[in-house]
């Protein structure tokens, strides 16, 4: 008998039958793993071949058109496809400018205070964390490392304030590896809690330069575009003294990409006007913001300006907050 009215030759798209009629053949129904694997490999090769043919065809068309060819499409990346964030700061917004001009960092940005950083860890740190703190103290000028001694942060903070510290940085350690950082701006400033990952100490870096000198580094803050990003960027900027020593040719970079903040410390040298050579010194680590709390460290009763809520905020791959 003739086949049914809607019988169309199946395309051998045997990967997903979908809901076509009559039901076509699907890879997942083959119970034999070896055979299924073979069919899948064949399918992938087929797809790859088709893709290559398509690409060759397009290239031929483009060459045929010569100069009149349309410009190449920009490939889509996650950064390109980023959902427009309505909190992105407009550089000319005066209200934001006023807000930033009078917030907790205004004392630093008006050159009234110099940064003085206290670096400490969670209690009883292990070797890696201790070395990380020492290296951080060489990178950040005017930083002092103190042993934690099991003291409560809420008691340390008034003492720091009375000794004119402007920042308290606590590196949290888990299983002998640093994994968190609490950065608290001191007189009454915001407290940021970060997740730290990918810590590379100086001796693990390849082709690194000599140890950093005492010169104040320059600071580069990349890609902090939203209002929250601005606050965090200002927090990082206030860690370093205002006047960088260009003689030292050292630069600390905080690069924000997809809500991860990458810290790098380099020494640069201009070979001529257009070419620069850089050497990476110093530790490198990655930060991810977990929460930003208004006021000094008070995790139970403090008010949070921003809290990372994974299930609500990480549902889209194209939405970022910093």
């Amino acid at each position, binding site marked *: 008998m003739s086949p049914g009215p809607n019988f169309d030759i199946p395309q051998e798209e045997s990967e997903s039958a979908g809901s076509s009629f009559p039901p076509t053949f699907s890879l997942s129904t083959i119970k034999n793993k070896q055979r299924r694997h073979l069919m899948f490999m064949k399918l992938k090769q087929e797809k790859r071949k088709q893709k290559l043919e398509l690409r060759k065809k397009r290239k031929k068309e483009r060459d045929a058109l010569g100069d009149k060819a349309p410009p190449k499409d920009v490939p889509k990346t996650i950064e390109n496809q980023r959902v427009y964030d309505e909190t992105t700061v407009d550089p000319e917004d005066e*209200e*934001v400018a*006023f*807000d930033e001009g009078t917030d907790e960092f205004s004392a630093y940005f008006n050159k009234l205070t110099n940064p003085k950083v206290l670096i400490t860890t969670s209690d009883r740190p292990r070797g890696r964390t201790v070395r990380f703190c020492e290296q951080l103290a060489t990178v950040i000028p005017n930083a002092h490392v103190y042993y934690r001694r099991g003291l409560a942060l809420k008691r340390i903070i008034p003492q720091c304030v009375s000794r004119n510290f402007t920042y308290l940085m606590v590196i949290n350690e888990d299983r002998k590896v640093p994994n968190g950082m609490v950065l608290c701006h001191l007189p009454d400033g915001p407290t940021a809690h970060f997740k730290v990952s990918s810590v590379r100490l100086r001796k693990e870096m390849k082709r690194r330069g000599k140890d950093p000198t005492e010169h104040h580094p320059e600071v580069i803050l990349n890609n902090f575009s939203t209002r929250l990003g601005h606050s965090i960027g200002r927090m990082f900027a206030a860690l370093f003294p205002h006047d960088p020593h260009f003689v030292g040719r050292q630069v600390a970079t905080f690069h924000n990409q997809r809500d991860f903040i990458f810290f790098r410390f380099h020494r640069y040298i201009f070979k001529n006007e257009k070419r620069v050579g850089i050497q990476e010194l110093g530790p490198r680590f990655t930060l991810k913001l977990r929460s930003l709390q208004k006021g000094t460290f008070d995790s139970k009763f403090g*008010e*949070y*300006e921003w809290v990372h*809520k994974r299930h609500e905020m990480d549902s889209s791959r194209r939405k970022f907050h910093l």
Partner: protein
Amino acid sequence: MAVKSQLCSVWVGSETGILKGVSLSKKQAFNFCEMSCLTRDQEVCTMAWGDPHETEVLIGCLNGRVKTFSTEKGIFTESRECGDLSQGRFTGLAVMDSSLITCVESGLLKVWNEGSSNTAEINVGTGVCRMRQNPSQRHHVATGGKENPLKLWDLQRPDKSIFTAKNVANDWLDLRVPVWVRDIAFIQDSNKIVTCTGHHQVRVYDPSSPQRRPVLETQYGEYPLTTLSLPADQASVVVGNTHGQLAILDLRKGLVRGCIKGLAGGVRGLQCHPSLPVLASCGLDRFLRVHSLKDRTLQHKVHFPSMLCGSDTAGEVEEVKAEEEEDEDEVWDSMEMVKEHQGKRATCEEPSEASGNRVKRKRKVAKQ
């Protein structure tokens, strides 16, 4: 300016001292500020409606001034000096028969009479976090704060409080339970008072009963509750905490009915619409969000450059007959066109600092 201010259905105060009016139907926000020089000490601490018709917004600022903003004219009409920074921030503003009631953190509750300079003063105890007026009995006010239990005062007999709440019994370790009342609300059509505390408890008190301890107590979350608001349908309360978690709690049994998602920062102001199941919330994440209480979805979201302290919702909505929930714009538009000026009063409070922002609820306007 006047046109813009008449359109606004939600009023929000910010940390920089700017009063912002948001028109949800036109999806626009307007800034109203007194002068070009803004200072941080003009941060809005509390907001209140100046009159039952919701034509005036009273704003209490950090430096002790109370400013009056007229929504019809669109400008600040008056500014009075009601205290100074040494006494603490404003924790409550209210109006009773053309006299202004203010309360500051140090516990000084003053009634400022119009014209005459004599003021009545009550000391309600130190560490006050909130003062609220009973919408149906305007001469009753309630105050509460840190280690300052809920007290109900009658302004006509200011020497002693009518009702002082007693602390709950010691907990299972026989330790005294600390007191920290952060927000208070009067339940309509009954004598009861709902409070939320900084130790994540929600309590209901009944002053008319001989029991001074709470009639109902529930807990929500692990973080201090900053504000609360009573929706139009009774027997439930919406609370917000410092982590941005908003929950609707049932007051009959004390169970959580649902949570509202979306806020990323501490809730500073909550206000329910007097008749529609709609909630406006603002907070430290610089967003004003309007949620529908029935399905807990987000209806509107407005971003502001500075942190928000309090909000008031006003609406010329009397009742919405056809609740076409799908098209909320239409609902809002139809609201505007109804000429009956049943303004819902929501006062915006702008506490930017520690005091919680209250989102004012739209009260059912008592028709005079």
